[in-house]
Structures are given as structure tokens and as C-alpha cells.
């Protein structure tokens, strides 16, 4: 064998080794199942394929956790995991499922709205595959994932994504972005069918208010805010005022859902169903392109020297110092905002009221950490997996 062929053979060997090691990690992420402990009020776990049959057998046949008080009232739905790279959504959703006690009406939670997007990591971003929350009984582990669905589940993308039904042109990869595909299409690609199924659920189950949980980079102007459809503006405005005055160190704002920007939950769910739709944003430094080292510490602690430096130059829409935006602050803000919006909704529509207890608010989450509200699977009577 001549020298060139030996070099080629060695190169193939190195490539195979790299592929094997990487494949083990890719498969570990794709096959990992997140355990959800079914809390005291969970009366039923449905599959999204009940509302869009074509989702059966796909990664997006997600669990829908229904907490029913058995007493008359309205229905509030919370979506976590619309964008899996924003981990507060799934964490807050788990805390709701595991702790909420329903005293009136129904609370519906989806922990992984676009599960396909949580099964792989975004090329080029160097995200960690998993993140962990410390608890008294050990660590609870989640997949991190990408903003859009996995190309393994939805490929190829079109040249340009034309949104249904507005015909608005969007970036091609947004056809896998759950928060660009509302209200969805029955004969669309996987993510479009996912939102179609969710819309069917919202209409058939007469959801009164949809809450979509998000995080945003500090360079993004829609930050630490509630984005509200016209139907939910009063609730969002009141929640913003009360939370800012009574609970949060950093104020939470309120913004109107733009009428010309299509595909987003806060616009389309409000337009195509009876539900009010609102979306929460909280600061997540790991999403900033100007971030430093990308690892799990940054994701959970939210501390980054580069983002602090950008703040000194007035480039950020949220305050940023050496304390950063730790996970307990982010989870606490979302939980308090959910509870506040439900309270205001119930106050404004007493015949459709939803009463929830057992869910920690901002101060309690900061004091004890989110892990204090995540149950031990070994002690659980009923579990489900996402």
C-alpha cells in the first residue's frame, strides 16, 4: 500500500471514529425520555393525535396534560417547549403539572409543544444536548434542542416558507418553527400539522386563554414582556402593572401583538379561535449571539461577561450585570405571570373562572430554587414521559 492510500485509510478511520462517538450522543439525545410526575389534579393525559390523526407515530404526537377540578369554570392552556432552546418553558410546565391543584375550571399543559425540535441540537450553535436542575433527590434532566423541528422529522425545507393562510413569506427554516406555523394546516409539514392539531384542541375544548412560554436574547427588543392579542390586552396590561409593582425586581412590560406579523401564537390563536392568546418573554443570555463560552452553566446561571459588556454599550433591552439571569429568576417570573393572568382572567369572567393553588410564585422559586418543586420519580404514583 503506498503512502497516499495509507493516509486515506487513516483519514477514513478517524472519520468513522468521530462518527461513532457523535452518533452515540445524537442517539442518546433523540432517545432520552423526560419523566413527568402526574400531580394531584392531573385527571387525564391525552395525545395530540386525537386532534390531528396524522401526528400519530410522529415525535410531535405530544402529551396533553389535563388538570380538571371537576367544577364549572373556564379552561386555560399553557404551552412549554415551543422553542426547546428556551428551557424555562418546559421547567415551568413540569412544575405546573406536578404541583397545581385545580379548585375551579381546567388547566391544560403541554410540556413539549414541538417535541421534534427537542430531539436534536442546532448545527453551528454548540448548544449542550441536555440541561439539569438540582433537586433534593438528585438531578432532573431535560433535552435542550433547537428552535425548529429536527430535519430528521421534516426535510427538506421549501425554498421559501409561505405561511398559511396569510401567504406571508418567511424564512425557509421557519416552516419547522412552531411559533411561525399557527394556525397550521392539516396537509402541511410536521410542524404545521402540530399547530393544526393544537388549534383543533383549542377550539374543540373551548380554551379561554392560551399562554405560550418563551425566552429571548437580551439584544431582542421584545424582552421581559407579555405580548397580547387584542382580546387579551386588558389582562396583559393589568398583570404587567401588578407584577411590576408587587413582585418583580425587573419590570415586566406589555406589548400588542402585531397584526401584520403572521404565524405566531399571540396573533393566530386569537384570530382563529375564541381563545385569548398571550406570550411571555424573559431574558436568556445564552440566546445572545454575542455570548461567550457556550455551555450548560451559561444556560442555567445566565451569567456572561460579553453580554455584560454589550450592556455597558447600551446594546441590550434588559438589564444585565454580574448576577446574570439565573434559571430561578426566569422560572419564577413565568410562574408568577401565569398565575397572575389566570387570576385576572377569573376576576374578569367569573362564570369561566379558573382557580389554581399549589404553584410557587416568583419569591418562593428564587428562595428555594425550581428543583424544590420537582417531584422524585421514584416516589411517584403516576408518571408520563415526553
Amino acid at each position: 500500500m503506498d503512502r497516499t492510500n495509507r493516509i486515506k485509510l487513516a483519514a477514513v478511520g478517524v472519520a468513522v471514529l468521530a462518527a461513532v462517538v457523535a452518533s452515540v450522543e445524537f442517539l442518546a439525545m433523540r432517545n432520552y425520555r423526560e419523566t413527568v410526575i402526574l400531580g394531584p389534579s392531573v385527571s387525564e393525559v391525552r395525545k395530540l393525535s386525537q386532534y390531528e390523526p396524522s401526528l400519530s407515530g410522529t415525535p410531535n404526537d405530544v402529551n396533553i396534560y389535563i388538570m380538571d377540578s371537576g367544577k364549572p369554570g373556564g379552561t386555560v392552556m399553557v404551552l412549554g417547549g415551543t422553542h426547546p432552546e428556551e428551557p424555562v418553558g418546559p421547567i415551568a410546565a413540569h412544575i405546573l403539572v406536578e404541583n397545581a391543584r385545580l379548585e375551579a375550571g381546567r388547566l391544560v399543559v403541554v410540556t413539549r409543544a414541538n417535541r421534534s425540535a427537542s430531539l436534536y441540537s442546532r448545527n453551528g450553535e454548540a448548544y449542550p444536548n441536555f440541561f439539569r436542575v438540582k433537586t433534593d433527590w438528585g438531578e432532573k434532566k431535560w433535552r435542550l434542542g433547537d428552535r425548529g423541528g429536527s430535519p430528521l422529522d421534516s426535510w427538506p425545507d421549501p425554498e421559501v416558507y409561505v405561511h398559511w393562510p396569510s401567504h406571508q413569506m418567511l424564512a425557509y427554516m421557519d416552516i419547522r418553527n412552531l411559533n411561525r406555523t399557527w394556525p397550521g394546516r392539516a396537509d402541511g409539514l410536521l410542524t404545521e400539522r402540530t399547530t393544526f392539531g393544537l388549534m383543533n384542541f383549542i377550539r374543540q375544548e373551548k380554551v379561554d386563554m392560551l399562554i405560550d412560554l418563551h425566552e429571548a436574547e437580551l439584544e431582542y427588543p421584545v424582552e421581559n414582556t407579555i405580548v397580547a392579542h387584542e382580546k387579551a390586552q386588558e389582562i396583559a396590561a393589568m398583570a404587567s402593572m401588578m407584577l411590576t409593582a408587587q413582585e418583580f425586581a425587573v419590570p415586566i412590560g406589555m406589548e400588542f401583538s402585531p397584526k401584520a406579523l403572521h404565524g405566531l401564537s399571540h396573533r393566530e390563536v386569537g384570530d382563529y379561535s375564541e381563545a385569548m392568546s398571550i406570550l411571555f418573554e424573559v431574558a436568556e443570555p445564552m440566546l445572545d449571539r454575542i455570548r461567550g463560552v457556550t455551555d450548560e452553566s451559561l444556560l442555567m446561571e445566565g451569567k456572561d461577561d460579553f453580554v455584560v459588556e454589550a450592556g455597558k454599550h447600551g446594546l441590550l433591552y434588559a438589564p444585565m450585570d454580574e448576577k446574570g439571569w439565573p434559571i430561578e429568576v426566569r422560572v419564577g417570573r413565568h410562574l408568577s405571570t401565569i398565575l397572575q393572568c389566570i387570576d385576572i382572567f377569573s376576576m374578569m369572567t367569573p362564570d369561566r373562572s379558573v382557580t389554581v393553588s399549589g404553584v410557587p410564585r416568583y419569591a418562593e422559586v428564587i428562595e428555594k430554587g425550581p428543583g424544590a418543586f420537582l417531584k422524585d420519580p421514584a416516589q411517584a404514583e403516576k408518571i408520563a414521559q415526553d
Partner: protein
Amino acid sequence: MFAHAYTILAAVVVVFLLAKTLRLSTELSMLASTVAGGVWHVFAWPGSGLRIFVPDNSLLRHIVEGMFTYFDVCLIFISATFFMTLVKESGGVAFIVRRIVKTFRTRRVVCLLLLTLVMLIPGALTGSGATAVLTVGALVGTVLSAMGVDDTRRTAAIFMTAAMSAAAPPINLWAMMAAAGANLPYVGFNGPLVVLSVAGAVFSMFWLAGGGKTADEEEAMKNLPMPPEGINGIRVAAPFVFLAALLLAGRVWPFDFPVIGLPMIFALSSLVVILCSGVRLKVWEILTRTVRNLLPLVGIMVVVGALIQILALSGVRGLISLKVVILPLSTLFATLFVILPVSEGILQYAVAPLLGVPLIMLFNMKGMDAIVALSAMSVLWPLGDCLPPTAVVGRAAVMELDFRGRYFGDFVKACLVPMAFVALCCTLFLIYSKQLSFLAF
């Protein structure tokens, strides 16, 4: 963290230069620098818990994952080149070239305008300058040659018009990727993009090819290959009509036409070429030759993806972005026409989310029109497609037109004046974005 990122950046640059000194190819040099930067990061930043081999959190996973960043782009390059090579081998190119020379040789202005339009269409529809070069570049280049344009100027003309075609609407990948990253809808870009890209393409074509002599039909025909017997306009046009129909169908009937992707569109169009060809094509040989010819291009794209992932992992990407966005606005206006093409040469499309998103946010904060400003940036980026280390479109132009001159001394030098024109227009659009916001309809 700053010291760590600077150190990794230095390691990446030093290893790249060292590898080049040892006469390794650009692709291998970049791979060596990627691995070096990654390994250094693993040992210098133990807090991440990253290991080189151990599955769960390994450096190898990041390198492999990064290598797939431009997987789709690589497939498009290969399938588009395969399509065009089949057209060439079937005699279609020779037929079209002869017809164009025969019809337009005495009407130079009309001929150049039509050739510019032919160059603009494929890139405008796909967002890829390389696709423009690979599909129509050789054809237009041959016509220019017959019109008396020398090798250097016609290669430069093909590159510049291909670069502008990639920037032309409706598909501008840089604008789309940056807009997506900034949650800005990809709407309203057609106006500013069409003004800038068409102006740039027309200026480039006339500057580079406007001054040639009128082609001598007899001489030109003598130098052009004879198409095979039995070939006719319908047979030659059928694959292009089919390609255009598939490209347009997804836009005209987006909710009824299946999403098959550009690689499949080119593959199906290739089938039509084979069916319509007047000669028996050696398909397997053409396919393997196409892949072999494109290996350097594909290799660059694969390794660039890995490099970007390691830069993001170690904080170097953030450092570069930060240093760009904290520049004063006046400095940005005075330097973006250099920064953007140079960064495109290094990072390709990845530069749009890397620099584009923070810049859009900065422009928003400063009260500029984000759509006009991003459009201007998105026309500046493709100018860098002839710059190293990637030089994807430049290399493709040189390869397709069989250019034998010096890459920088002749080809890039010939592009400088048209580039300066485009850079000037884009910089004016940046500065006066607010006043030009009426274009973003």
C-alpha cells in the same frame, strides 16, 4: 472569558497559518485549526465538563455536528452542477450559445441586458450565486467570449452577476437568515434588494463586457462546438422550462405543490435532460466527475461548519460579534463594506446570523430602517464570495469558465471597480435607510 476567547482565536489563526506553511490545503488547514481550537478549549475551560472523546459531552460531537451545518447547500451545489454538466454533455449549451451569437451579435446593449437577466434568474430563485454560475455561467461566459470579452473580464462578469443574482429577490438567504434570527418577517425586502442587485449586475456587465468588439459570426461559430444532430430548441429548453416550472410551482401553489427541495428539483430536471438528450449520455461517469470536481468546494463548506461550531463553543464567535456591534455607527458605515465581504469569505452564509442579527438590532436601536439596512448588508455579503478561504462562487466561476489566469492578480482585480460601485450604493442605502424606507413596500 475575554482572555480565553482571545487565546482560542490566536490558536486557531496560528495553526491555520502553520498548516498553510506546511502546504496543507485550505480545507485541511482549517480542519487542523478547528481541532486545535477545540482541544485548547477543552483543557483551558474545564468548567464546561467537555471531553474530547467521552460521549455525553464530547468535542467530537461538536465537530461532527458543525460539519453538517451546510449539508443542504452542499447537496444543492452537487445536484445543480450535475444538471448543468448534463446539459453541456447533451450539446444543449453549444446549441443555445450558437443561437444567441447568431441573433444578438450586432445588438450589443440588448445582448448584454439579456445575458444579465439570464444570469440573475437562477440565483434570484435559489439565493445561491454558485447555482447561477453552475447553471448558466458557462453558457453566458461562452457568449461573452464570442463577443470579444477577454477571459479575465468575462470570468469577473460572471462572478459579479452571479453574486448579484444571489442577492436579488425573492430569495436572499442572508436577509432571510438574519431576519429569522432577529424575528423580523421576511417581507418588504423585494424593493431595496431589486434596486441594489439589478443596478450592481447591470453596472458590472457593462463595465466588464461593454467595451468589447462586435463578434465576427463566422469566427465565433468556428470556435463554438457543433451541437449533435437532431437537437432543437424544444429539446434544449425542456429541462430549463421544467426546472423553472418546479421552482415557480412551489411559490405559485405553495399549499398544493409538494415540498421536494432544491436538490430533488435539480435531480428531476437532470432526468429531463437525459430523456431529451439527442446523444447517449454517460450518466455515471458525469456524476462521479461532478462530485470529484466539487470536492474542494464541498470540503470547505463542511469544515467551515465545524469551525463555526467550535468558535461558538469557545466564545470566539461572541467576541467577534461583540467587537463589531460596539463600533460607533460612523465607523460601521465606513467599514461594513469591507467587514461584510471579508467575513462572508471566511464564514459563508453563517455570517448572516453571526453579524447580521446583532447589527439589525443595533440599527433598530439607532432608529434606522431595519429592512433597507439589512437589504444593503445582504447585497454586500455576496461580494465576499470570491475571497478566501472559502471563495465558493469565485472558485466556481474560475472552474466553470476554465480561467487560467492569476486568481487575485487578474480575476479579483478585474472585479474591484464593480465591487466598489456596489459597495458605494449599499453604503448609501445604509446611511440613508430611513429616507429610503419607501422602497420597503
